[in-house]
């Protein structure tokens, strides 16, 4: 049975995958067959058969672990003793962890604002132009690839070589600086600017998301409004300011809050580009470091809970706005 758990060759792995899928299909078929047979069967039994698997899975996969994590956040490093609020007071007083919180705040403020602004401007500029489709695909593309891939792309842009005769820069950004007559920089290890260079990567990814939603919102502005405004003599910037922005306001809020939620949980970029070194760590990355590098389970649990608590207000606001957008539609 060991090969079922740890297949080694590629062929074995695929066989195990097929077995898993068949096993799953068999279980589901059995459940459906059981509730389909009896002629008279109560609604509750059918409901349990249909919704039961999902409810069981989220209970053991999300609810129960979340409760354990909250409990662990009040315990020490290895979970052997209660420490009350020590982990929380440490998270908000230890200088290194304060830096982590400060970085997270910078991320959550800058990424949504800048990527939404860029996405909006771009959506307006390419709206109803000849190359609109291609132009949008180019900016949306980063959304498709993994954040690990995006991080490697940008790490290469930031690549640094010392400025010596005979040594050519291989990172594009440093080459541009050299062309302009400057000194090459170590973008990823120079504090505090390195955090901003990591943020650029997230903006590069999220602008496509903002652009797509806002572009749809712009296209949904009723023709009469635009026509009336034009007849009133509005054009260019004033059209943008007085018609476009107010019309897409609800969509703007949804985009801002959605990106903020994603940014709060950002982990891949920081981990791949700096590993959280050089003062660039954020809460989601510090969680991983504390749990798996420092073996401090209590503090890691606390950071996870902090993440959870920070997401809640954004989510509540987001849901409210989303409802408004849907009503307008």
């Amino acid at each position, binding site marked *: 049975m060991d090969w079922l758990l*740890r297949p*080694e060759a590629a062929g074995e*792995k695929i066989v195990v*995958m097929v077995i*898993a*899928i068949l096993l*799953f299909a068999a279980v589901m078929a059995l459940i459906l067959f059981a509730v389909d047979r009896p002629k008279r069967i109560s*609604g*509750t039994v*059918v409901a349990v058969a*249909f919704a039961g698997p*999902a*409810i069981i*899975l*989220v209970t*053991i*996969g*999300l609810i129960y*672990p*979340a409760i*354990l994590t909250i409990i662990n956040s009040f315990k020490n490093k290895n979970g052997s003793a209660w420490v009350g609020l020590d982990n929380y007071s440490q998270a908000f007083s230890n200088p290194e962890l304060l830096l982590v919180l400060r970085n997270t705040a910078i991320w959550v403020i800058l990424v949504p604002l800048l990527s939404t602004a*860029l996405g909006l*401007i771009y959506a307006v500029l390419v*709206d*109803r*132009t000849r190359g609109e489709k291609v132009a949008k*695909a*180019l900016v949306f*593309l*980063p959304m*498709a690839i*993994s954040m*690990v891939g995006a991080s*490697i*792309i940008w790490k*290469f842009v930031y*690549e640094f070589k010392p400025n010596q005769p005979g040594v*050519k820069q*291989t990172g594009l950004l440093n*080459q541009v600086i050299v062309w302009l007559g400057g000194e090459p920089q170590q973008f990823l290890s120079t504090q505090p600017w390195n955090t901003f260079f990591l943020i650029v990567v997230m903006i590069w990814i999220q*602008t496509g998301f903002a652009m797509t939603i806002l572009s749809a919102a712009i296209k949904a502005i009723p*023709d*009469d409004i635009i026509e*009336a405004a034009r007849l009133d003599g509005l*054009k260019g910037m004033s059209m943008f300011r007085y018609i476009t922005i107010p019309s897409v306001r609800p969509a703007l809020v949804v985009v801002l809050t959605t990106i903020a939620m*994603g940014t*709060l*949980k950002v*982990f*891949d970029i920081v981990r*791949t*580009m700096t590993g959280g070194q050089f003062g660039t760590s954020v809460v989601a990355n510090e*969680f*991983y470091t504390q*749990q*798996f590098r420092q073996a401090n389970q209590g503090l890691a649990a606390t950071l*996870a809970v902090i*993440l959870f608590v920070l997401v809640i207000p954004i*989510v509540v606001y*987001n849901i409210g706005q989303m409802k408004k957008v849907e009503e307008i539609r």
Partner: protein
Amino acid sequence: MSYPAIESTTLVETADGGGDERRRGRLRRSKIAERSESAASRLSSPWASAVAILVAILWTIPSVGLLVTSFRPELDIRRSGWWTGLTGPFTVQNYETAWSGSGGLGPFFVNSFVITLPAVLIPITIALLAAYAFAWIDFKGRNFLFVAMFALQVVPLQVALVPLLKAYVDMGINGTFWSVWISHAMFGLPLAIFLLHNFMKDIPPALVEAARVDGAGHVKIFFQVLLPLLVPAIAAFGIFQFLWVWNDLLVGLTFTDTGSRPITVAIAELAGSRGGQWHLLTAGAFISMIVPLVVFFSLQRYFVRGLLAGSVKG
């Protein structure tokens, strides 16, 4: 001064209320033409289009750099910038080394594939059934359970990882594909149920009622009435979940070991341990991106819809 014009459009539209569909269509078409004209005139302001083109170029250059570099000989990569090597020489040596050299990515690519397929199929199936129950079966506590499910969408995975990891270790399945499949299935469910439920609710109740009157049970209604109508929704969520799992780092990092590691984890590790070896990193990164890119270009419509719908996950 502008009043008469506005009035005349309103008049036209009320006249249309009588049902002259064709005329309304013509009117709309002419308006669209007008608007695109106005957009064109706006963009003929040269610096507006210049800005748009500049942004598009800025957004594309980093990826082009990666792509070009991955085809350059190793020595060239180290000695000069990729912008000097646009005319060649090119080689596929980096891809060969990255795929099958020591610590090559080939096996990890297979792992990603093996992880992704069940991690998409399982949550979709379970979620379809649950969404059906929430939409079309009357039972006690239905609304409460659905709202709870909805709320679970936003639980950060970090709060669930460590207790799950311990459970997997106790069960002896930690580091196997099974733990990753189960995790992705559980994490994907809330969003899947929410999305599919919304689509199911949009199906006219009359259809379901008619089937019921004909004596069809829930299982039959589910398979014969609803499932065919849900194909676009399933495609949209399927693509979203596929890319989410394929591109995932956190779950893979936590629950897999060397034998089951997905390609994202392998590449992230490569970036940490051999960060200077750009010939391997660029080719490797591109190998990991090829699947999402193919999906993106071939299924763009579903893809955008799925991504937008699922943007709060995680």
